[in-house]
């Protein structure tokens, strides 16, 4: 059984290696402040869209500019180099992946939105 043990060892070594690579690839959840310290590393920021601030979309560059509030309540201007996601304003939470430019803005590469559940509207059943 000696060679089988050797194989087991090799497989475990490969597994460990694969997991190491995997763990190193994992990004971290951050606030805008942490993101600015981690530049140029990509991070994931969970927050909300600030609807008070303008959401502008430049169609010729298809660049979206908006303001987001992170979990600490800090605001940052966010640039997203993609067309505006559908129902963007309705999102109740947005997950931004990207990197901070230091302290001026956050450049999102990807936006995932959580929209309010369509089932939540109980008011619809009130009899009028």
């Amino acid at each position, binding site marked *: 059984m000696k060679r089988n043990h050797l194989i087991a060892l090799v497989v475990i070594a490969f597994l460990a290696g694969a997991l190491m690579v995997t763990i190193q690839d994992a990004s971290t959840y951050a606030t805008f402040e942490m993101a600015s310290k981690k530049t140029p590393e990509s991070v994931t920021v969970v927050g909300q869209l600030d609807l008070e601030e303008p959401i502008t979309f430049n169609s010729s*560059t298809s660049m979206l500019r908006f303001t987001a509030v992170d979990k600490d309540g800090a605001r940052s201007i966010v640039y997203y*180099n*993609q067309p505006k996601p*559908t129902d963007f304003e*309705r999102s109740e939470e947005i*997950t931004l992946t990207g990197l901070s430019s230091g302290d001026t803005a956050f450049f999102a590469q990807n936006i995932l939105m959580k929209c309010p559940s369509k*089932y939540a509207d109980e008011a619809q059943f009130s009899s009028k």
Partner: protein
Amino acid sequence: MNFIGEHSLWALAGRFFTYLAFTGALGTALFYGLNWLRPGACSGPDELGRPKAAHEPFLRAGRGAFALHSIGVVGILTVLLTAILSHWFEFDYVWRHSSRDLPLEYVFSALWEGQEGSFIIWIFWHAALGWFLVRGAKTWEHGTMTVVGLVQLVLTSMILGIYVFGVKIGSSPFVLIREMPENLGLPWTTIKDYMIRIPAFRDGQGLNPLLQNYWMVIHPPTLFLGFAATLLPFAYAVAGWIERRPLEWVTPALPWAYFGVGVLGTGILMGGAWAYEALSFGGFWAWDPVENASLVPWITLVAAAHLMFIVKKKKTSGGLTAIMAMLSFLLVLYSTFLTRSGVLGDSSVHSFVDLGLNGQLMLLLGLFSVGSLILLLVRWRSLPRSNADEAFSSREFWLVIGSLVLLISAVQISFSTSIPVLNKLIGPEGLVPILGEAMAPPTDVFRHYHSIQIPVAIVVSLFMAMVPFLRWDSTPNALLKRILPSLLVSLVLGGLAAWGLKFDQPMYTVLLITGMFSALSNLDLWLRYQGGGWRSGGQALAHLGFAFILLGALISNGKKVAISQNPVFLHKDFPANEHILIPLGDTVSMHPYWVEWTGERVEGHFQLFDVNFYGTAENQSPGKKLFSLAPYIQMNPRMGNVREPSTKHYWDHDVYTYVSFADMRSPEEKASGWTEEMDATMGRGEEVFVFEEYMMRCDSIIVKSAQMIEETGDLATLDMAAKLTLKHMDGRKETIEVPYAVRGNEASPGEAEFVNLGVKVRFDGVSDEPGRFKMKFWRKAPEEQEFILLQAFIFPYINVLWLGVVLMAIGTALAVAKRIAGPKPAPKP
């Protein structure tokens, strides 16, 4: 109370069938289990080879219970389908997942859109497959059916929808909306004719527009049949290990394992076809957690199925085989947990919403995992020991290595997919806080997964190319020479192809060559050494199909070209994106095509954008028209608009395009020309700041004529005007008069326009405050050239992938058929 128009009897029937299915499953587990585990029953067939317990009353009871269970399951399906087809929106499930305008073919999609429905389809397949065990498992019937009964018991509990001591057990699809916890006690739930009175009950919420696609009619049931198929190897493995037959279970389980490999593999890639056709992700695979969760059990099932041959032929590797077979089913359960618990909410676009069943899901998962683990540990010693190493040139040796490579692949995908779960367990706010900060999924998922999965694919394709040529025990060197021709041809062909396709990453080139190698060598094996008949072709065809899947995925993804490049330069570190702006009627260059947007039209729920593709003429101007595409936006006021692609298929490449942005305002809104309506109340000499760039001043109010009715002193006619001056911040100035007239009781507001500054005013009348007047202002909408943003990709050779799926399905079907048919009858002399 009798509610008018309500089908509460049907709801009751649905509940009844649910309880029937539940108790049936309980009976199945109980009666089969009692008979199975009674002393002396675990020793297989009697001396004459007959199933020992054929006349046991418990056996009949078990079968009867399973029949009741199956009737219950079919009943559940029937009631739910009837409710959806008849638009009974008093059912919460029907209201949530369907609507009156839902086309008939999508009724099924509505059926399995929700969690409850997808549990039902899963339970249904388990019940259907269970009958194959009842009819054909012979001595294994007790053991496997006990396991099936237990699994069904736990799964049907997920749709019970009852409260036991205040704990919710399952979520029933037969709950009426007025019975939902959040509605209990609300006044309307006591109105007799609430169904007629409340408008919300006239139509349902509708099916998610993304799922209104024909792939969504067949993808979920196929996928769930694949999931269900993992139950059989699991049941056989558990039965075998409990009965101390840790090797023998493999023979009857083997065809089912391949059945699962074929169906699950097809089901997964049907999901890919759906994503490619209906989603604007730009591809058929996105390494999304939900996709991964269905891929991982397939990978371990492939490993288990291949290992089963070693157990069957060589009576070794029993432990690893059992682990892989059990793992496949457990990973299906885990995948259920991942997609349904809401834990993926942050990281996946298509997970289910949380139904508050997390505890139950975890219990289910924990029960089966811990049970399997204990079984393996307790019975590990009943495995026959073998002290000899497998020969280096033996098939069994390389099959074991291959399955371990697959395990590495499965572990990496599971690990990364489970990051949200790990956070819940060991994150800073988790159960056992170990991590300092929460882990987030990798930001570049493609790079992340490919860094491990491409090397794995290279090794797997090499194994697929060579291991089928190896013999059990050991292989003479002469046999190994058989793979030389395909190796040489694939080196040359692959090299040429890599050069022709301009592959620049060495890993991709290697995979291209090894992929071709495995395709060619399996074809060679089948045609030259196995006679090329259908009966013998299963293995080679399935391998050929999988090699094609790898090649198709590699080329179509690795050489996917975004032809829609935004020409606007932003910054050297911030590349312009891949969305091109096309003004209406314009033709813009999208190398190698020129595209023209000719207009939009509405068809039902779809807003289609007609896009023409032209070739490029010699002088770089648009050439002749090649084809037209109509990417569309599905308009759904309740769930938001969905962008859907349109694709031109050629045999060697696809041109895939979707509208990534379009002005979806109604034509009236677009044409009105005046926007940003604002109200103001003004008096003489007052100023208002309007539209953030103008100062509006009311210079004077001029009464031009007024007539009184002499008897009453009331106003008969009045003509007046407001003299307004609008001043822009840059100094431009314009003065106009806005009229206002009263004729008896009728007032007619007047309108006037600052023609040069583009502002319109309406004089609405007298305000409540004396001496002040109500005004409305609009500004002229800027002259907008209508445009769309378009994203377009070329996917080269994606048909190789789809061909691969078909070949793999045919191959596994042939292999299963061969196993079921048994050994080939001896040729007649």
